[in-house]
């Protein structure tokens, strides 16, 4: 009887290439500029920052030990990724820094965080589900809060005593850093499940397990994915703490070692790489969210 036709989107909306809620906010004020303009803004701000940095070091306002020039940082970055002689005119060639290229250090750290966050997801989500739906929640929540507030640098020493100086202690640290946000976001997601949806599926004859898989899990997925994003970001910031002892190969370990040797240019190069990796990880998880939860914000 009623005909539903897709409303014609006005010219201005058609220029938008990013995902937006669609016709329902057609009348809303434009909240985000188009992608091209956003990219331009980012490029311009980075260029301005680099220019300011270069000017400060060129004018000699800060000592090179404290702030090396962008050129020195770039040189350190290139040297860390190549086979180079240990000194000008020497025959002896060394590979990268500490016998690994910079990208190999980065990959080693990413391996550790993948295992740590993976374990946190595998343990955190089921535990969060249990805590959100049973009496375990009231019992364990203060312990979870306690764990969440511990600074990783404080207990890395303890972990090394318990698990040794190999990868195990590092992965444990990353796990303990990533686990509380995931568990807590799962709990909060479960608390946000619409009772009507649960009742609706129950009235259709669903078993308890089916309620879980058909309603509760998909409904909590958005919150869980946000929790994973937060957890990964936080765990990545602890990568330097985790790699303080015997951290080679590892980008955090290299940054720490370079700092001890007063090689500021290499430290800054490592910091930039750590920051860029964090941004890319976050982007990747955001895109994962768009793939797994396309209904977010549209329901």
């Amino acid at each position, binding site marked *: 009887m009623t005909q539903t036709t897709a409303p014609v989107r006005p010219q201005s909306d058609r220029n938008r290439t990013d995902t937006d809620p669609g016709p329902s906010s057609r009348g809303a004020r434009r909240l985000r500029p188009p992608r091209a303009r956003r990219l331009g803004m980012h490029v311009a701000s980075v260029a301005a920052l680099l220019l300011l940095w270069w000017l400060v070091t060129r004018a000699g306002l800060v000592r090179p*030990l404290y702030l090396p020039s962008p050129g020195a940082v770039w040189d350190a970055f290139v040297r860390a990724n190549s086979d180079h002689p*240990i000194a000008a005119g020497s025959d*002896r060639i060394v590979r990268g820094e500490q016998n690994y290229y910079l990208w190999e250090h980065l990959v080693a750290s*990413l391996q550790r965080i*993948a295992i740590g966050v993976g374990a946190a997801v595998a343990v955190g989500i089921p535990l969060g589900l249990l805590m959100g739906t049973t009496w375990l929640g009231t019992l364990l929540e203060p312990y979870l809060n306690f764990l969440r507030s511990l600074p990783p640098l404080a207990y890395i020493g303890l972990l090394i005593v318990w698990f040794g100086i190999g990868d195990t202690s590092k992965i444990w640290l990353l796990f303990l850093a990533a686990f509380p946000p995931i568990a807590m976001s799962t709990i909060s997601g479960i608390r946000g499940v619409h009772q009507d949806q649960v009742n609706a599926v129950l009235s259709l004859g669903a078993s308890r397990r089916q309620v879980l898989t058909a309603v509760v899990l998909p409904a909590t997925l958005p919150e869980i994915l946000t929790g994973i994003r937060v957890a990964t970001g936080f765990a990545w910031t602890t990568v330097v703490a985790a790699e303080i*002892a015997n951290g080679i190969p590892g980008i955090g370990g290299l940054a720490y070692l370079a700092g001890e040797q*007063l090689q500021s240019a290499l430290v800054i190069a490592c910091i930039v790489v750590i920051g860029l990796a964090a941004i890319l990880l976050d982007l990747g998880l955001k*895109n994962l969210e768009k793939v797994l939860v396309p209904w977010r914000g549209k329901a």
Partner: protein
Amino acid sequence: MKSRPTRTAAALAAVTLSMSLAGCVESGRSSTTSAPDTDCPWKPDESVTTEARIAWQAVPNGDAVVKDLGLLEACMPNADISWVQAAAGGDVVKYYGSDDVDLGLMGSAPATIASSEPVVEDVDLSVVWIHDVIGDAESLIVKDPTITDISGLKGKKVAVPFSSTAHYSLLQALADAGMDATRDVEVINLEPEKMPGAWQGDQIDAAWVWDPVQSQLLEDGGERILSSADTAEAGRPTFDVGTASQEFAEGNPEFMTQWTKAQDYAVRMIKDDPAAAAESVAVVLGIDPADAEKQFGGLTFLTAEEQAGPDYLGGQLTEDLFTTAGFLLEQGEIEAVGTESDYADHVDPGPAKAAANG
């Protein structure tokens, strides 16, 4: 807007790429590019199949040369040798405590801590080698050019990394000058890399420290007024020593023989061909070979024959550890000083004697 299958395919591709990349990094790769094929300078011992985990530190001495040239790996081809870097002697003691290493390099101060209460209950090591006697490598650098003497530091702030050989030398020097380390000067605990910043901000007046920070402070207008060479002459020497867990040393005498032979070879190389040794040290420490050669000048190296005698491993070292313990007790770093024979239990001249004779 990309369709869902394309997005999922992209995600899968990213995951596969990252997993294949992950395979490229082998965690166990040794920390130096293998020096051009080293042959063992003597006949390799193929019967040794020990698994040895060695803790090393970034110190410009024979241990770094042994590591870089792969002497142990060349002379004991069937042994399983792994190296782990420690930031300080205290860390090496910790690694012994958690049973993560069998051999390690540390200063004489951490070695004394490991041989005294309470640490001696968890750790049972013995000093088997003296890598070097610390001289100008650790020295007191002051900021004010008018101060020429340690007594001029009355009322000033001196930074030093606690529980290190530098700390011990500073306390000895203060005591010898008749000053009270708790009242006449303010001694603060600072990690070496944090000193240039504090120096720049006029937050410290002096520091007793080693390279590369020592050279950095000298460049910043500091003056060296005392060094560990002076305190050594005053009868308070400090050393970098090679240690091994007693259990390991007793159970693997052939390994220890080869190890000490390699260390002796490295010491002779530093004395006879410093340029070549400096190159190896430079690779391991990540510095310039010229700097490495300069740093050799701040240390005294002893051959196996010199060490095995009564002046060092054969007797005097035990006394030095005992005196060190007395000062560490005052600083609260240990709980009790053992008897001299307790410390003698932790010094073993056996391997050095075997290398000197063999």
